[in-house]
């Protein structure tokens, strides 16, 4: 399993853009928003939390189809399925690799982009916590969507169509948490929900994703 | 004739759109069924 994680990370670095691309997309999005809504703090501050989460979500979506598609094309997926690794474990590891290459850089960059969007400094701890708790679920659900669409010719569009509705609860609790942090309210409830969703997703979705993958391999 | 008052547009609009949608669904269902039946019968007669 560790070998698989190492290989995926190494590939993300070697192939170029694995780490940087998502963050660059995130930056562009945050830079474009003020052009759309105007530079005033009064316009930007209320929507900053939402933009940051939406940006993270879309940046995550960009690289989802690569989780399995490349391995499917070159036959690695067949070999992984015949290997002693349980396919559920391989799915979880690949989602983890996706999270390390896209989720983690986004979390590191998020406070900077928060400043661009006039997010008050008081909200930055809750921004970081919410992303840290929420983005693993995004990667795991994305891996499920990628597993379902792996053999399809025009899977990319379908992938977004299938995965985005699954992101709604995480998005709601994530932004709610930042908003409460911004207003100095209690963030415990959305935090617990967010953590609960992520824990449930990490525990159960690998099985669904592996089942979908087996169907697509036969 | 039933008097609908000032909301006549809203009520008639809601009924109109809903019935049109249902009608479309029913039409599509029947058309697809008729086509499937026709093609299957043709196939069974030949083969």
């Amino acid at each position, binding site marked *: 399993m560790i070998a698989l994680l190492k290989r995926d990370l190494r590939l993300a670095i070697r192939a170029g853009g694995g780490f940087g691309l998502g963050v660059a997309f995130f930056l562009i999005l945050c830079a474009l928003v003020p052009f759309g809504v105007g530079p005033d703090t009064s316009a930007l501050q209320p929507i900053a939390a939402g933009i940051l989460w939406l940006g993270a979500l879309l940046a995550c979506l960009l690289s989802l189809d690569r989780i399995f598609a490349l391995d499917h094309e070159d036959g690695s997926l067949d070999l992984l399925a015949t290997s002693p690794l349980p396919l559920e474990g391989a799915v979880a590891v690949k989602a983890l690799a996706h999270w390390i290459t896209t989720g983690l850089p986004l979390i590191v960059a998020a406070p900077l982009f928060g400043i661009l969007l006039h997010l008050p400094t008081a909200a930055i701890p809750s921004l970081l916590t919410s992303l840290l708790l929420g983005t693993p679920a995004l990667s795991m659900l994305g891996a*499920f969507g990628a597993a*379902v*669409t792996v*053999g*399809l010719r*025009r*899977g990319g569009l*379908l992938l977004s*169509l*299938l995965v*985005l*509705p*699954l992101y*709604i*609860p995480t998005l*709601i*609790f994530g932004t*709610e948490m930042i908003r409460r942090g911004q207003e100095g309210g209690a963030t415990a*409830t*959305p935090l617990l*929900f967010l953590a609960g*969703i992520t824990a449930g997703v990490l525990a159960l*979705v690998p099985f*669904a994703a592996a*089942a*979908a993958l087996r*169907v*697509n391999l*036969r | 004739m*039933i*008097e*609908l*008052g*000032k*909301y*006549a547009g*809203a*009520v008639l*609009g*809601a*009924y109109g*759109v*809903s019935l049109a*949608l*249902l009608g*479309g*669904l*029913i039409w*599509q*269902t*029947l058309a*697809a*069924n008729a086509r*499937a*039946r026709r*093609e*299957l019968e043709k*196939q*069974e007669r030949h*083969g």
Partner: protein
Amino acid sequence: MSIWEYANPVKFMRTSGAVLPWVVAGAAVCTVTGLVWGFSTPDDYRQGSTVKIVFLHVPAAMMAINIWVMMLVTSLIWLIRRHHVSALAAKAAAPIGAVMTVIGLITGAVWGQPMWGTWWEWDPRLTSFLILLLFYIGYIALWSAVEDPDSAADLTGVLCLVGSVFALLSRYAVFFWNQGLHQGASLSVQSGERMSAVYRYPLYLTMLGFGLLFLSLLLVRTRTEIRRRRLAALQAREMRA
């Protein structure tokens, strides 16, 4: 032939063909009577004539949810028992459910406009229905995207399972996110003001009518799917022979 103990489309075709006329007649009678009766009810003292929309809105919304539940059950039957007709029934139900959801949304919006002063309100109930519509669209899109019929049935089954959990989760998340303008469930017994009998009986009738309407559409669409599969199988055999 022993093939029928594996999946029994012949028996399904025979039985569904026999009951179909009765179901269709029942659906037509109940829906038309219920809607006409509902249309002729007196105006509500607060909502005026818009109250008549309830006879479309509530049955459609109810069916939108029930159809998803039915799809979940048939998907599970397919995944566990490999009953082929079951998978096709789930496929056949999805577009009906999507149309019901759209009707629920549109009538809700038209109703909300005079009541709340806006066409669209991000009210938790309306929002949950919008999310449900997204799940229906994803499910239908996946069916049409996968070419191999076995894979399509399996993948949509798994999607329906995961989607159900998330549709439910989204519903609670949405309530958390925005407490709404929407009135409580129209028929709930606990709520203080119960709907008066004038509206209640025609509403029951339209609900029954929509249920039967769904059943008849479902039967016809499943029959269509079975015929298509049979045609495809016969053609494939012919190609090889």
